[in-house]
């Protein structure tokens, strides 16, 4: 094990895979000369040259579409979106081409494409720049959707993504780039569709992913002082969704809280809650609680923003409710 930041985990995996496989190339806005908005691609233009590290114009539709075409012809493009908010002009390309072309071609083409960048909210960027799009992308068959919460998973999932035959929506979180954590040595991978138990506990299962995992862990610390033992699960992948691990835990704890950063309607938390009801209805001692963002566009004012998104207290209160 070595210690590194989430940012360094991403960057080092890109470097290792680019060294290993000449088909891997990078596209994105200001990833080269500017070194990347979040410096994930720092030094890579110098290392690999402009043919493999392509600074694009501000044309998400165009360059994400082009990356899909590159993938169809056998390359392994990695697109950096400056943030996921800017993927929406390219939603047509991602959803209508990348996700489906294997299917409507009867299996004649693959789209081994990774689109990565920061997803989510919480730093006063207001309505257009504070969105968690996992539920949106998670809706579409043909895509893989992952959201690592730790440096180790950032490495393991990115490596799996880079070796995948399918388009991967790789959701990072800006608030996590600086966090440090242990990562295994070597070229370990984390398979898609495997949730992990981050903290063992007997009383309640708390399901989270990405930044929400860290809030859930903080809430679990606080609740531990009250004698409540939370089992905290990190989904890691939204599609495929590992309901087996979730159900296995809920069958032991009989109670569940599901946490999601943003809007409740048709959201990831609703999906997980429904899965729990379908699989463990008879095991439940209380209704499943969802902790989600409020059903409003993200506000700017700090006090309003705090009200709009989940925090540790809200998670702790939800846990106390399911334990009553």
């Amino acid at each position, binding site marked *: 094990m070595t210690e590194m930041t989430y940012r360094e985990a991403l960057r080092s995996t890109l470097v290792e895979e680019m060294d290993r496989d000449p088909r891997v190339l990078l596209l994105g806005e200001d990833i080269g000369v500017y070194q990347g908005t979040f410096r994930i691609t720092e030094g890579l233009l110098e290392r690999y040259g402009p*043919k493999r590290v392509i600074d694009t114009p501000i044309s998400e539709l*165009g360059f994400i579409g082009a*990356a899909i*075409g*590159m993938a*169809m*012809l056998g390359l392994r493009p990695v697109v950096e979106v400056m943030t996921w908010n800017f993927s929406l002009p390219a939603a047509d*390309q991602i959803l209508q081409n990348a996700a489906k072309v294997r299917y409507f071609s009867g299996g004649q083409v693959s789209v081994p494409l990774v689109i990565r960048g920061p997803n989510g909210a919480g730093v006063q960027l207001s309505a257009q720049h504070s969105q968690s799009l996992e539920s949106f992308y998670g809706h579409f068959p043909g895509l893989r959707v992952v959201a690592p919460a730790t440096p180790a998973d950032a490495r393991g999932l990115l490596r799996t993504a880079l070796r995948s035959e399918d388009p991967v929506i790789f959701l990072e979180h800006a608030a996590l780039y600086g966090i440090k954590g242990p990562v295994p040595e070597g070229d370990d991978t984390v398979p898609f569709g495997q949730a992990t138990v981050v903290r063992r506990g007997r009383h309640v299962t708390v399901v989270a992913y990405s930044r929400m995992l860290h809030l859930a862990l903080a809430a679990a610390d606080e609740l531990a002082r009250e004698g409540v033992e939370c089992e905290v699960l990190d989904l890691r992948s939204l599609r495929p969704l590992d309901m087996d691990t979730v159900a296995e835990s809920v069958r032991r704890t009989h109670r569940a809280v599901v946490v999601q950063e943003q809007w409740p309607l048709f959201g990831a938390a609703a999906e997980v809650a429904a899965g729990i009801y379908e699989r463990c209805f008879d095991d439940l001692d209380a209704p499943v609680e969802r902790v989600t963002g409020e059903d409003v566009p993200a506000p700017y004012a700090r006090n309003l923003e705090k009200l709009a998104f989940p925090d540790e207290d809200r998670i702790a209160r939800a846990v106390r409710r399911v334990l009553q």
Partner: protein
Amino acid sequence: MQHAEPVTVPVDTLLEWYRTLVFCRRFEEQTERSFRRGKIGGYLHVAIGQEAVPLGFLSALRADDVFFVSYRDHVHTLVRGTDPRAVMAELYGKLGGTCKGKGGSMHLFDVARGNYGGYGIVGGHIPLAVGAAYALRYQGTDRVCLCFFGDGAMNSGALHEAANLAGLWGREGLCPVVFVVENNQYGMGTSVERASAVVELARRFDAYDIPNERCDGMDVVGVYEVARRVVEEVRRTGRPYAVEALTYRFSGHGAADLFQPYRSKQEVERWRQRDPILLLERRLREAGALDDHAVREVEAWAEKRVQEAVSFAESSPEPPPEELYRDVYGA
């Protein structure tokens, strides 16, 4: 319009093209009949009247070149040599179809022949073709990519973002793509004048520093001459090029476009005088290479081949239920 170029196509090839054009026409007419009989579902867009554009352009490609098309993709697929029986079976939603019946009329693919497919979102495939062209150069080959789309697609953002990227990447010799605008004068019922601020569509590529020209899309020989020159230039330079082929669809936009209130019978009649089959037939008759007897033979051959495709499609099995779940993800 570019000046006429010397015809260098041997008569045998012209005869072969004539047979291909007649066959494609009969094939498309058959799909319309099959649609009316409920054998073909969904949307059906035939290219009757426009056949010279795909034939001329695809005849200028090498076997290892690639192309992307809109949903009006039957003729492109046929002239590239895909088995017509598989094309018809795809339209019939059968397992023997090009895509096992899972794509239908709008999504014909034959990757082994460089056919990277038909796409149903207007303009949506244009960025793919630009990326494909980049990939071909990245891989160190001199293969080229053709991208066919309609006049209507000229007004989509996808075209403009893709064209700008092509212009940029082309400066480094990394984007061997030919944009082929199949200007059939209408996007559904909206004429070019009512949709584009600049009606000479080729000129719009000037904005991206992409060389461009217009050509007569009804004369297959003329189309081929332009295509051959352009394709070879793009192959040599790795730079994009755009050709606006002026053509016309004699059928409705799709099978549901019955009344066509947006155009007059006289206008259709005028364009029919320049039917690509008629023009080529005239050329061959003048050269003494075709007579009434030979025309009848070609017609009988084409009709027989179309009926073989129909029989194959009729008897091909439906995709089994397992196919529903296949091809969503790779291994």
